């Protein structure tokens, strides 16, 4: 009997609000990273057209964008230093403050 060992590399996944997909193609991105910032940087490195919709000219999170990690809103909006696990689900959503 043969035994096969398969290693599946798990990475955090960034999901973008469907309302953003109206403007720019941005499928869920499973990318490496230990913080929200690293995940977003990796996602936008692969999909640079989407970057300016989520981050402003200075690379900061746009005022009316909300980011959740495993259901919890990020605490550090400025530095995006919130940690993510290798199986984290990150949701980039519209904040209702933006109307």
């Amino acid at each position, binding site marked *: 009997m043969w035994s096969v060992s398969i290693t599946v590399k798990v990475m955090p996944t960034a999901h973008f609000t469907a*309302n953003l997909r109206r403007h720019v193609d941005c499928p869920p991105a499973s990318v490496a990273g230990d913080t929200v910032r690293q995940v977003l940087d990796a996602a936008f490195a692969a999909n640079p057209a989407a970057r300016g919709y989520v981050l402003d000219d200075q690379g900061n999170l746009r005022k*009316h964008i909300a980011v959740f990690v495993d259901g919890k809103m990020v605490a550090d909006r400025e530095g995006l230093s919130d940690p993510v696990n290798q199986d984290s689900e990150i949701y980039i959503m*519209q904040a209702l403050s933006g109307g």
Partner: protein
Amino acid sequence: MAEKLYPEKLYLGTRKGLFILSRPRGGKWKIDRVSFLGDPVTIVYPDPRDGAIYAALSLGHFGVKLHRSDDGGKNWTPCAAPAYPTATDGTAGASTEYIWAIEAADPKSPGSLWCGTIPGGLFHSIDGGANWRLIESLWNDPKRKEWVGGGMDKPGIHSICVDPRDSAHVRLGISCGGVWETRDSGETWKCRAEGMIARYMPPDRQADPNIQDPHRLVQSPADPRVLWAQHHNGIFHSTDGSASWKEIESAGPSTFGFAVAAHPTDAKTAWFVPAVKDETRVPVDGKVCVTRTRDGGKSFDVLRKGLPQEHAYHIVFRHALDVREDGNTLAFASTTGSLWTTEDGGDEWRTFSTDLPPVYCVRFGESSV
């Protein structure tokens, strides 16, 4: 060129998308196409040099975007939006918050563009918006850093007048930063608002050129020494290329407003849409009218025929009045979604619609497509 003049085109940037209207020679306007339905279009620029159309979007959550069409609006391609350089001096740095002006930079160089933004940066492109360069000479000027917001939180460049005699000679209208001029394509700048008065300032600052709030600045194509400014504190007129400004103290029901249009071939003719100052911002007595001077601001006709004269509360934003190159066809549109046109310089107006979204900008153009 006659084949380019028809069908006539009229572009409306609105709170809920870009509307492209056309009409055949002698025919009626109709809406041909709606693009970006649901999205705010702050400025549209139909480029007569190559037939391109530029549309600037201000997406509430997702920031400022710029799109270009090369087929009359059927298909749109994202351009780069003007972006501010990453701050390296420890400050927060700036981001484009609004595109408030797009104009051809050089009539002989298709693809060369100026773009005015909030928070006050001027950008230049040589490739139809594929890339933008911040004009750092202006952005880094210590006097630029004194500009303040007018109606918006931050200051912005809303008017770009490229001198028809020399495209290196450009004037900007800034809320609130007065009028700024370059004669060398943006390498050096001077504030040129001597004579304007800012009554919203303490007495000893009211004449400061750099604090003025021209809501809209236009230059006469017929005589480029002539400029008109619909200012927060009234109408100002220059006949010496913005070296000095004179206030026009009377112009029908009010000298307050946002929009002004200059006649293409008669330097003494211009149109305004008055309102009650300052923050009230409704038509005087609830009656919409246009004021027109044909003698360089000495006197004004008050044009009401065809416009609502009872409980009408339309406001016309600074880019929402335009005159076609024939000098007789005008259009203006309101924050409450009405669009009016005239064929006779404003003597009589026709209502095209009262049901549009709030209108930010109105622009005539001819499409080569």
